[in-house]
């Protein structure tokens, strides 16, 4: 399948600060690719180089095969971009922004339906809009020309759950229509819900590029068990077990991979209560981070 995004040995240095330090990844057509990392990890710097806003110190970014340092204006015909904190022109109304975008990008066929869907008032000046409505306008501008690639830098940060849900719904519809989406976030449930594959970035370097399924397979299990007989915590340090913590008449165990050795050990005891749950993606994310330390 064709690579829509090709990032090769990308570096972005600000003096001594290595914001992005030689990262590589590709995103295929139709993929929803999550870019994970805490604040300051290098997510936004990568996206800014990708979009041609900032010039890379080294390496290259190609979108639709176009080098973003030279031919970004051609590639951007097919790209919708939404930053986390949309900054538009205070004195312009929503319509002013929409018309300006249409003057550059061409007439939009779906702007009215987007306005209706998001229940957005395009007659208000940008400075009078709430943060949620500002984000709605940003989303309308990003989607109004039906882009083939959607780049979103923390698009739901600071939004109420209803609007977050609506944005997720739109993104899932776009995914179903085959739009390639790159979404940077530190909202792990959001990434888990939307993405096929994720890259985890730490201090400007990629620490993992995995499919969501692979990440899910690596997921830890949390097991809380209570015994009716005597037990020794040390007996449960078997294959797959990461931590064993003693609670009243029982244990709190985290385990990953093959659970059978642990279940066989547990079966030797008189169990009065047993609960097993999946650890969150956040736990997996933290595990990557701890491993990269």
């Amino acid at each position, binding site marked *: 399948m064709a690579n829509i995004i090709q990032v090769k040995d990308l570096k972005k240095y600000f003096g001594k600060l290595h914001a992005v330090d030689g990262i590589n990844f590709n995103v295929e057509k139709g993929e929803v690719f999550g870019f994970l990392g805490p604040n300051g990890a290098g997510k936004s710097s990568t996206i800014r180089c990708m979009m041609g*806003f900032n*010039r890379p110190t080294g390496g290259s970014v190609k979108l639709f095969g176009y080098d973003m340092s030279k031919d970004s204006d051609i590639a951007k015909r097919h*790209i919708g971009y939404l930053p986390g904190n949309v*900054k538009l022109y205070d004195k312009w109304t929503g319509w002013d922004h929409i018309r300006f975008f249409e*003057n550059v990008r061409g007439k939009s066929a779906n702007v009215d339906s987007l306005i209706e869907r998001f229940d957005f008032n395009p007659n208000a000046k940008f400075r009078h809009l709430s943060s949620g409505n500002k984000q709605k306008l940003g989303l309308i501008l990003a989607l109004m020309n039906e882009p083939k690639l959607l780049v979103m830098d923390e698009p739901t940060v600071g939004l109420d759950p209803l609007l977050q849900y609506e944005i997720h719904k739109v993104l899932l519809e776009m995914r179903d229509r085959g739009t390639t989406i790159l979404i940077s976030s530190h909202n792990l449930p959001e990434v888990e819900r939307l993405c096929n594959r994720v890259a985890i970035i730490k201090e400007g370097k990629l620490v993992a590029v995995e499919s969501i399924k692979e990440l899910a397979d690596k997921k830890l299990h949390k097991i809380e068990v209570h015994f009716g007989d005597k037990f020794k915590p040390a007996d449960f340090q078997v294959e797959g077990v990461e931590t064993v913590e003693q609670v009243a008449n029982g244990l709190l165990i985290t385990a990953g991979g093959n659970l059978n050795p642990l279940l066989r050990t547990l079966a030797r005891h008189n169990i009065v209560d047993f609960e097993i749950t999946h650890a969150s993606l956040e736990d997996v994310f933290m595990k990557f981070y701890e491993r990269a330390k």
Partner: protein
Amino acid sequence: MFAFAKRMFRDKYKSFIVYSLGAVGFVEMYIALFPAIRQQSVQIDQMLKSFPPELFKAMNMDPSTLSFSTLESYLSTEYMSFLWPILAIVFAISVANYISANEIDKGTIETLISLPTSRIRIFAERYLMGLLLIVGFCVISMLGAIPFAILHDTSFVLSNFVTAAVGSFLFIWAIYSLAVLSSVVFSEKGKASMATSGILILMYVINIISSLNANLKDIRYFSFFNYFNGSELLAKNVYPDYILLAFGGFAVISTIIAAIWFNQRDLSV
């Protein structure tokens, strides 16, 4: 077509009207006072001649044209030597800041450059629209005196005003280009304005020092104010060839540097 230029016009036309009408308003005030002043011109001219010539040189005025006997010499002293340059410089800086520094400062530049247009096109459309506004300002603020001169039944020489409009445009074009360069180099509107203003103040000081100290007279070539003489343009109708070379040359070179800088720099900070 020309979406960026058209949008700039929509955003800046109000300040264009305010500055242009402001200049025309001052011109009307000066012309309305002129008949009364002309009646006293002999006494005023004698009084002016009693001042040391260095004083006028320090204020970028030509002592040989200091006279209130004609409208052109009167306006060149009252209007072109101080008020008009200040209005024009402030307007040029405000237009130049719109091109880049203001956008970076407010964070709106990301929206602009996420659109499928090259940076050079954005720069060129905005630069040329700014230049058009400045041409308009120079024409209105200079030739705007003509209807008021007719209204107040004051004689005038049209060619002097045309020469003044052309010469003053070249002067402001150079300042506008300097301000555009500051606008693309700095990421904050305040810093860009300060840089341009600082350089212009330095040039003004250089011009004063060079006129007062014969040993330092050659440093005047580093000052725009050495090449801009409102009295020569408006009062004498003299259009020195070197001002095209000095102002035009500076404007073209600084514009090319600004375009390259804008194309290469990190715009999202």
